[in-house]
């Protein structure tokens, strides 16, 4: 059975070179970096060497990097740590509607604690518009957090412009969630003009268990984990040296091979997008067009008349692993908040399918998807009452005979 992994937004396969770099810290150099004896010193050196390499990926200074355990933790630390450090000068926070849940739910918690939040809308390609940010900024805005790139639809925001606008019109600190971007596209904190930036190891062929928060020298932040003096007393806990060493190696490789990977991913992505559009009718690309501000490895389509979970289950049966933003595919049984914010038609969005590519994918694998996926779509359409209605009448079915459209929301939560 073939195994074609096309869900690289959720996780990536670790690079062999990364795994090799980690091994000694599991087996030989297991000392705690806070210990003074020689075995501790080896770990301490590894930690600081890693900090330098991780900083280099985003053009930060070494001491501006705080190691955390994952992107979610970096975002929690940034949002809660910065908001609470600045709460005496204001209570207003701005984020976009398409942030990762680790940002959105951190903000929801802050709202319960008395902060106020504005959730910026996006256009139908997933772009945050500068004018919306401008309108939302207030004298008491203390923090703006807008992601650099969206994992689900691949839209890359103009963070440089948004950060500049924030600086010109307010005293707010600017944070960006760059988990989907750092190591994939060039990221330079000095050029972007941001005060804080989250990024992670597991999406750039590094191990799970390591991530970082860049925090600009002088920016205030309150730790969210209390304990010892690790990470400049900003994040307590015994450092995960093997994972951090792996993260550093992954950053080093990502920086060196960024251009090569981008070219490879774009070639595959364009082939997949073009091929699917040629072979399947009534499918709609979600996000920016290929060649615009779209992540190189991101392919997200809404396939009309079918449902996304069915699509990826049948793909899985063929050895192809993908994701979906449909309500049924989500644990919370709601259509993806990203597609919703982009105003994707809810019924059509239920057929969303997400392929996210990696440097390990090949032309042959894309050919295989192009061969199998259209058959899967046809098979499900042949079963779909929405499709037969469309074929017979040329119209989209809303609610059919015997349905009471209003009462039939009973089995699903629709925000009317």
């Amino acid at each position: 059975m073939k195994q074609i992994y096309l869900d690289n937004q959720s996780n990536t396969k670790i690079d062999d070179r990364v795994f090799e770099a980690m091994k000694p810290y599991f087996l030989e150099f297991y000392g705690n970096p806070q210990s003074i004896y020689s075995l501790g010193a080896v770990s301490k050196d590894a930690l600081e060497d890693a900090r330098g390499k991780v900083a280099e990926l985003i053009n930060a200074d070494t001491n501006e990097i705080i190691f955390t355990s994952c992107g979610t933790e970096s975002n929690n630390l940034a949002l809660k740590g910065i908001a609470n450090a600045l709460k005496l000068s204001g209570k207003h926070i701005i984020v976009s509607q398409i942030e990762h849940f680790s940002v959105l739910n951190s903000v929801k918690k802050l709202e319960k604690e008395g902060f106020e939040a504005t959730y910026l809308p996006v256009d139908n390609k997933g772009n945050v518009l500068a004018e919306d940010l401008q309108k939302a900024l207030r004298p008491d805005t203390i923090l703006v957090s807008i992601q650099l790139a969206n994992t689900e639809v691949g839209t890359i925001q103009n963070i440089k412009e948004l950060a500049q606008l924030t600086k010109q019109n307010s005293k707010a600190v600017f944070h960006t969630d760059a988990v989907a971007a750092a190591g994939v596209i060039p990221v330079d904190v000095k050029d972007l003009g941001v005060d804080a930036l989250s990024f992670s190891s597991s999406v750039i062929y590094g191990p799970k268990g390591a991530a970082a928060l860049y925090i600009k020298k002088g920016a205030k932040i309150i730790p969210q984990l209390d304990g010892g003096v690790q990470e400049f007393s900003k994040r307590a806990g015994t450092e995960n040296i093997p994972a951090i060493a792996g993260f550093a190696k992954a950053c080093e490789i990502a920086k060196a091979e960024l251009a090569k990977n981008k070219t490879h991913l774009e070639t595959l992505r364009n082939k997949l997008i073009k091929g699917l559009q040629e072979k399947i009718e009534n499918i709609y690309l979600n996000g920016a067009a290929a060649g615009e501000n779209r992540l190189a490895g991101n392919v997200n389509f809404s396939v009309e008349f079918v449902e996304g979970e069915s699509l990826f289950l049948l793909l899985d049966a063929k050895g192809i692993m993908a994701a979906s933003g449909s309500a049924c595919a989500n644990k919370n049984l709601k259509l993806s908040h990203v597609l919703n914010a982009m105003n994707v038609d809810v019924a059509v969005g239920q057929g969303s399918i997400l392929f996210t590519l990696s440097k390990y994918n090949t032309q042959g694998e894309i050919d295989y998807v192009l061969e199998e996926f259209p058959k899967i779509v046809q098979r499900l359409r042949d079963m779909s009452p929405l499709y037969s209605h469309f074929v017979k009448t040329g119209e989209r079915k809303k609610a059919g005979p015997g349905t009471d459209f209003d009462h039939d929301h009973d089995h699903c939560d629709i925000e009317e």
Partner: protein
Amino acid sequence: MPFYSEKVMDHFANPRNVGEIKDADGVGEVGNPVCGDMMTFYVKIKDNKLEDVKFKTFGCGAAIAVSSMVSEMAIGKTVQEALKITNADVAAELGGLPPNKMHCSNLGADALHKAIEDYEKKHGK
């Protein structure tokens, strides 16, 4: 532990009785596209028995498996017996469904009942 039982996957991947009945005695539909699940059931009734049941379903793996299982359970039953089939019976017959699917995708019996009610209305029963 896979998300769906083997039986669910079998009915999802090889659904029984997919299609429409041209001259159906009753048609019933539940769900709607906005929720991500919609089922249309067709019944052919002769001598008070469900001679044939067919369906078309738009929905997740559970929705398709449930539709297939209901059609299989209903064929050959009397109208009264078919009306007694519950969504819970269907889920049990499938070897269980994940908890969040019990609520949203398990509508097959409802759709079947609607088709039978449609037949009864047309025949003034």
